[in-house]
Structure formats: C-alpha cells, structure tokens
C-alpha cells in the first residue's frame, strides 16, 4: 500500500470514527432527555414551591424544546464546548479531562499487563506440547477467564481489607501534598495495583487462549516443519517464524478486547472507588445530568474508535497480505 493510499485509509477511518462518536453522543443525549425526570427532580420535595423548580429548570435551560437544546449542544460541540454539568456545576470538558485520564491509566496498565502475560502464556503453552507448563497454563486460564472484573475486584478487596497489603479503594492517599513526585507516583501505583489486576485477569486469560490456539495452528504448518528440518533452533522457529503469523488473529480482535477493558473498568471503578469515566457516567445517568451523559459518551466512544483504528493499523503493519489487498 502506498503512503497516499494509507493516508486516505486513515482519513476515511477517522471520519467514520467521528460520525460514530457524534451518533452515539446524540443518542445518549436523546435517551437522557426521554428518561423520566430531569436534573431538577431531586429538588421536588415537599416544601419546595413549583415556582422554585420552574426557575431552576429555566436557569438550566431545561424548559426549552429538545430541538432547541440539541441545536445549542451541536453548535457548542463544533466549538468543542460540551456544556455544563448540572450535578457538578462545572464545564463537562473539565470533568472529562480529569476522569478520562484516570480511566486511560487503568485501561493502559491493565491492557499492557494482560497482553504481556497473555501473549507469553499463549506462546509458552503452545510451543511446549509436552511437560507441565501446558496443562498448568490452560487450567489457570480457564479459571481466570471465568472471573469477571466485578468479582475479581470484590475478591481482591477482601484480600486487601484482610491483609492491609494494598489500599482497598481510591486513586491516592489522603495526605500526598507534601510528598515528592516520586513518592506520589509510587502512591498511585500502589493504589492502581488491585484495580488493574482485576481488569487484566480475564483479559490475560482471553489473550492466552487466542494466542495459544493461533500458535498451535502456526506450529502445525509445513513451513515450520521445513524450518525445523533445516536445523533452525526451536526457539527461533517459535519466535521468528511462527509468531509473526500467529499474532495476527490476536491483533485482529484488539478492538473487541478494548471494549472488554472499558466495560470491565466500569465495575472495577465502582467497587474500588477509582475516580474514572465509568463512575462519572453512572452518576451522570442516574442524576439525569444530560450534557455530562453525552460528554461521557463522546469520551467513551472516541476512546473505543481510536483503539479500534489503532488495532487495525497494527494489523496492517504486521500483515503484508492486507497491505497488498487494500
């Protein structure tokens, strides 16, 4: 594929991603609007006069028609203004900036750990058909794939609460102001360990299962037998000949895996009080914080679309056939 063709492909995919993001966030906006109740629902208590509620609604712009609100939102979106959160009384963009970083940190660490462990385990178990490594890895991985992040984080919280080795929740300790940046990094890492492990566990198992299957297939191919016959050491055959082929199906599903990270991190964020996007989205949804909901939808779908794009480009890089055909 020529450089220009690649650029065209990239631009087309980016345009699709933007359309998707727009559709998803508009959908979220509409859904929240249609939902019973609005941001002033909590105000409606006995003793609060109707005029007060009406005034608050007018102040938040909720008394206008949906079309008017939506048009304002779209115009704002064009200027990258995502509106104000009714719950927090702050611009949605500021809130997203804080929270997206936290979720991205959790997701990136979990995904890296899961990839390294999963790929290694998959390669190890497929390339050593004899010996104890294979049944051990496949046994561990079938159990691990059955422990979803919600349960993993609860079980790890039990461990943390009983042993005190890890903090049970939050992203940092209370009194970090006086600490050097190194101490702060260590503090966050310490808080990150359990949530990241909870998200990574079933993912690592999934990647392992995919990788070992693909690797087994690759190792059964005739070119591998030919390489072995020429006297190339097994280790080099596995890593140099079979792996480049066997890694493709795994890379091909990274987009789906990323969706898994994202969904998994929701439960983990709630259990371990990790101040991320999932938590924010949940709060926004139940408090009918209409612009915050659509803002979270933008951040989430952008995150996914870019992840998908990244995984497709990676696939393009490792697979010459795809480059030739597109």
């Amino acid at each position, binding site marked *: 594929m020529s450089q220009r063709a690649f650029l065209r492909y990239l631009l087309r995919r980016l345009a699709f991603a933007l359309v998707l993001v727009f559709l998803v966030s508009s959908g979220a906006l509409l859904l929240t609007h249609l939902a019973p109740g609005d941001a002033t629902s909590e105000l409606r208590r006995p003793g609060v006069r109707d005029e007060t509620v009406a005034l608050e609604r007018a102040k938040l712009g909720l008394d206008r028609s949906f079309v008017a609100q939506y048009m304002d939102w779209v115009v704002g979106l064009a200027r990258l203004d995502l509106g104000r959160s009714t719950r927090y009384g702050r611009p949605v963009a500021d809130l997203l900036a804080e929270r997206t970083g936290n979720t991205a940190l959790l997701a990136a660490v979990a995904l890296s750990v899961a990839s390294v462990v999963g790929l290694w385990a998959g390669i190890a178990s497929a390339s050593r058909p004899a010996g104890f490594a294979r049944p051990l890895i496949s046994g561990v991985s079938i159990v691990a794939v059955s422990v979803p992040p919600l349960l993993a984080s609860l079980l790890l919280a*039990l461990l943390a609460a009983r042993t005190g080795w890890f903090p049970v929740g939050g992203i940092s300790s209370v009194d970090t102001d006086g600490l050097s940046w190194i101490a702060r990094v260590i503090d966050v890492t310490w808080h990150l360990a359990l949530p990241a492990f909870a998200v990574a566990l079933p993912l690592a198992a999934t990647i392992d299962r995919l990788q070992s299957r693909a690797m087994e297939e690759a190792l059964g191919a005739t070119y591998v037998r030919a390489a072995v016959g020429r006297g190339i050491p097994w280790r080099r055959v596995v890593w140099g000949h079979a792996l480049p082929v066997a890694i493709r199906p795994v890379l091909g599903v990274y987009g789906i895996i990323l969706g898994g990270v994202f969904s998994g991190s929701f439960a983990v964020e709630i259990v371990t009080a990790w101040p991320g996007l999932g938590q924010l989205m949940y709060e926004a949804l139940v408090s009918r914080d209409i612009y915050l909901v659509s803002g979270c939808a933008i951040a989430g779908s952008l995150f996914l679309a870019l992840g998908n794009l990244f995984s497709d480009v990676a696939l393009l890089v490792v697979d010459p056939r795809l480059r030739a055909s597109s």
Partner: protein
Amino acid sequence: MRLRAAGVSILLATALAAAAAPAIAPNLPAEQFRDHLYAPPMRVHVFDDGGRIRLPFVYPIALVDRLGRRFEEDRTQVRTLVWFADGQLVQVADPADGPLLLLGADQLGRDVFSRLLLGARASLGVAVVAAILALLVGGLFGAAAGTVGGLTDELLMRLADFVLVLPALYVVLALRSVTPLVLSSSEVFALMTGVFAVVGWPYVARGVRAIVVSERRQDYALAARAIGVGRWRLLTRHLLPASFGFLAVQATLLIPGFILAEATLSFVGLGFAAPTASWGVMLQEASNIRAIADFPWLLSPAATIVMVVLGINLVMRADRAHEPLRWVGRG
C-alpha cells in the same frame, strides 16, 4: 472430556438447585433472625464431643461478643439434621430454637444459603430468558436479512454493526438508567430481559444471516426450490435447522454475559432491589468493604457466579477456545 463432564455436572446441579430452591432452602429468603446478624456459617458435625459418630448434626450458635460480632457454638445442645420432612430437603428438628444457617447470615440476619438458592432463580432466570429472547429476535432478523436481502438486509446489518461496536455494558447501563428507576421485581425482570436482548441479538443475527445466505446456495436448497418448496417453508424446514448448532453455541455465550450484567446492574442499584434476592443484590449488600473483610461468607454469590461461568466455559472449552472472548466484552 472429563472436564466437559465436570462442567455439565456443575450446570445440572445449579439448574436443579435453582428449580427446587424452595424445597432445598431451609429458611425463607426474607426471614430475619434478629439474634443472628452476621452469624458465621454453621458447621455440620458428625462426631460429637465424646468422639462418637452420629448422624449429621449442628450445634446452635449464639452471640457471645456483641461488639466483635463473635458467635460460638453451644456444645451442650445437639441438633440432628432432619431430612425430607415437611417438603424440606434438610432442616433442624425445631427451627424455632434457632435457624439452620449453612452459609451464615447477612446484616439483617437473613440466611445467605437460602437467599443464594432463591437468588439463583432471579439471576439465572433473567439470563436464560434474555438469552432465549435474544436468540429469537436475532434469529428472526438474521433470517429476514438473509432471505429478503436488499435494503432490509443492509439496514438490519448496519443496525447490528452499530450495536456491536458499542461496549455492551454501557448500552445496558444507559438503557436501564433512562427507564424509571424504581420498579417492582417483575417489571425489573421484564425490563432487564428486554435490555439484554437488545445488546445480545446482533451476534445471533449476523451468524444466522451468514448461515442462511450460504445454505441457500447449497444443492439441497436449490433442489427443494426446484420441486416447488416455498420460500417460507424452505427457511423454516431447511435453512434455520442448519443454524441450530450455532444458536446453541450462542446461548452458552450469551448466558454468562447476562448473568454478569444482572450482577453488575443490581450491584450499582439499577437491577433488582431489596427485598428480592438475586446474586447481584446480595453482592451489592455485601459491598461494604469492612463487612467483606469481617464476614467473607457474604461474597458467596461471587463464588456461585464464577462456578456457573466456569461450568459453561468447561463445556465449551474443547472446541472453541476463541469464543469466550465475546462475553468478556460484556464486563
């Protein structure tokens, strides 16, 4: 093969326990034993203090340290377990003297074991009904897309793709939270199955469509057409049966995802609500970290969920190592 048998037996046992829950559960799920808040699981003994073997029995437990929530067995009283009496699988001879708490009690003094059994009905019920619904809708749409083709095909498949790219858990969360938040149990049941079916159908529809499209070109389908078999009959008698294997596999993929989705929704307070017992509700009630640390038996629904999912994975394991991926995407 042995692993698969193990998986099958786990699933059968769970299904049986859920079906016969009222007969197996020693106590009512909502019954509160005020003297047994946070009581630990009772141990079933076969040796008494004198070292003699007896029929399985328990010692009643009583609170000895109110502050530390410490319970101790009253070794002077032996309560032999009674089997198959009054339509109950197992019970202590006289429940009025103190309940049988095989998995301890929760913060309201309710029997965790009984709630776990009754909760299985809610949690597994939602998952199974939602899976059936998703299979029906997906099968219908897939068959329609595959047979009619053209614009219908294009629209249905684009719709399916759109739902597929979204993280399922967030779609579920969004759909559930924009509907009225306070509902009765049966309304929650109906709503959850509906919402789960919305995220589940595209997987089914895409597969069924692919099968229908490819089977239509097979010789047997052409032969059937040639002797004048109508479109509808061809579809129902020949093409759809070809996708039954696929549908069975889909069911085993959807159900774990839906069990988890119920747990997650109830956990964050958007699913079933007290006093209904479901595994998610129980986890939610256990989610206080201090409570988990001191009373780990409250996490037993987590263990049962892992057990069921593991059972399904063991059954599936042999032939499709790549398939479990799909439900990981559901949280």
